[in-house]
C-alpha cells in the first residue's frame, strides 16, 4: 500500500552519512537502501515521517518533519491550535 506521491519532508545529506546503517535498521518501510558505502533514498513515497531514522542518525545526515499521519490529530490540532497529536 502506498500513500500520496511527492508529499514527504524527508531529506538526506549523503556528505554527512558515514554508512553506519542505523537508518536501514529503524525504517519500518524500507525507504533506504544501501548504496556503495552509504545509503540512498530508494522509496521516498513509502516514508510515513515517523522520524525514527533522523532521531537515530548520530551524524545529522537525515532530516524529516516528524508527525503522526492522523486526520483526527490534525482536526484536534486545528481546533486547539497545537501541533497535531494523537488523543
Amino acid at each position, binding site marked *: 500500500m502506498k500513500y500520496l506521491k511527492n508529499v514527504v519532508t524527508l531529506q538526506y545529506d549523503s556528505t554527512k552519512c558515514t554508512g553506519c546503517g542505523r537508518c536501514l535498521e529503524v525504517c519500518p518501510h524500507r525507504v533506504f537502501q544501501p548504496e556503495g558505502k552509504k545509503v540512498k533514498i530508494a522509496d521516498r513515497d513509502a516514508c510515513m515521517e515517523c522520524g525514527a531514522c533522523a532521531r537515530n542518525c548520530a551524524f545529522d545526515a537525515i532530516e524529516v518533519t516528524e508527525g*503522526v499521519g492522523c486526520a483526527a490529530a490534525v482536526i484536534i490540532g486545528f481546533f486547539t491550535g497545537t501541533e497535531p497529536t494523537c488523543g
Partner: protein
Amino acid sequence: MASTCCGGTTTVGRRAKQSNCCGEDSKNEKSSSCCGQDVETDVSAIAHDPAVFEHPYVIGNIATPVGDIPQVATKLSFADTLGSWKCRWSIGRMNYMVDPGLYAVGQPDETSPVLVTANYKMTFDRLREQLDGLNLWILVLDTDGVNVWCAAGKGTFGTDELVRRVSAVRLSDVVSHRTLILPQLGAVGVAAHEVTKQTKFRVVYGPVRAKDVPAFLVNGMQTTEEMRTVRFTFRDRAVLTPMELVGAMTPILITFGILFILNAVGFGHYGWVDLYGILGAIFVGAVLTPMLLPWVPGRAFSLKGAILGLVWAVGFLLLNGFPDPAFGWLKAVAYFLLLPALSSFLTMNFTGSSTYTSLSGVDREMRFAVPAQLSTAVVSILLLLVSDAILTFGGKLV
C-alpha cells in the same frame, strides 16, 4: 516489599535500609554490604510496589542483587484475552496498563538478554506470550499505558524515560552485559546513540513484531528485512475497525437524537429508511473501506471512503425505488451527497490507525477533503430540511 539479595530489609517509609549479605544488620560496616551498594537506597525507584506480585500474570519471583523481580507467565489467561478484546471495543482502553519496571521471564540470570517494552497491558501480553521457554528480562517503560509505536511518537517511549528506567531498576547491577533490545518501532522516540552515551548500554533494535523475537534471539540478535517491515494486513485492519465504530458512536447517537426530535415536533419525516441509509454509510466508511483498503481505488483515504460511499448511496437509492424514489427527489439528491461525504470522513479518520500515512500526506488530502465533505454535508442537510418543510406545510415533493 522486595527484599535485598539476602532477604534482610528494614523499611523506613519509602526508603529501605539494606542489610549486608550475611543477613546481619551491621550498622558500622558499610562496606560489607553484599552488592557494594550504598546502605540507603530509594526503594520506590528500584523495586516494584509489592502489589505487583499479586497480579495474576505474576507467577513467581527471581532473586537478584537488587531485590526480587516478578516472574511473569508466558501463557495468557482468559482474563488477559478478555482484556484485549475489551480494548478493541474501546472499553477501558485508556487505562489498561502494567506497572513499569523490571520483570523476569523463565529463569534469567546476569547474562540474559533485556527486552524493553511499553506498559500498555496488551503490548506486554503480546510480548510475553511469545517468550515461552526463554529466559530473559523485560524492562517495562512508563508510557501511560500506550503501545510502543504511539508512545514513541509522543516521546513517552523515549530516550529520557529509557535512561531513567535503566538507572531506576539498577539494570547494571542485574545484568553483566550492556545491551538493550528495543522494539524497532521504539526508534521513533529513542535515539540509540544518546542512550549509549548516557547509560553505557548499547541499543539493538529488534523486530517490529513480538512473534519474531525468539527467531531474532536465535539469529544472534539480527533482524531480517522482513522482521523490520511494518505491514497492514487484512487482519491488522479488521481488529481496528470496532474501535472506529465506537469512535463514531457519539455523533451517530446525536444525529439520531436530532432526527427523533425533529420527528417529535412534527417537522421531521424520518424513519427506518433514513436510519439504515446513514448506518450503512457509517459502516462503509468505518469498517468496509478500511478492510478493503488496498483494493479500493485512489491513494487518499478520503477518496477511498467517498468511492465506496458513493457505491452505497447508489445502492441505497436503487433500494428505494430510484429513478422514482419513494422519499422524493430532494431527499434522493441529499443522500446522494451526504452518504459519500460521511463515508469519506470516517475513512479519512482511519489514517490515524493506518501504519503508512505521513502527516504531510494527511495534511495534503485534508486540504481538499474537509472543505468538500463539509460543503457537501451542509448542502445535503439543507436539502433534507427543505424536503421536510415541504412535507410539513402540505406541499408536494417533486
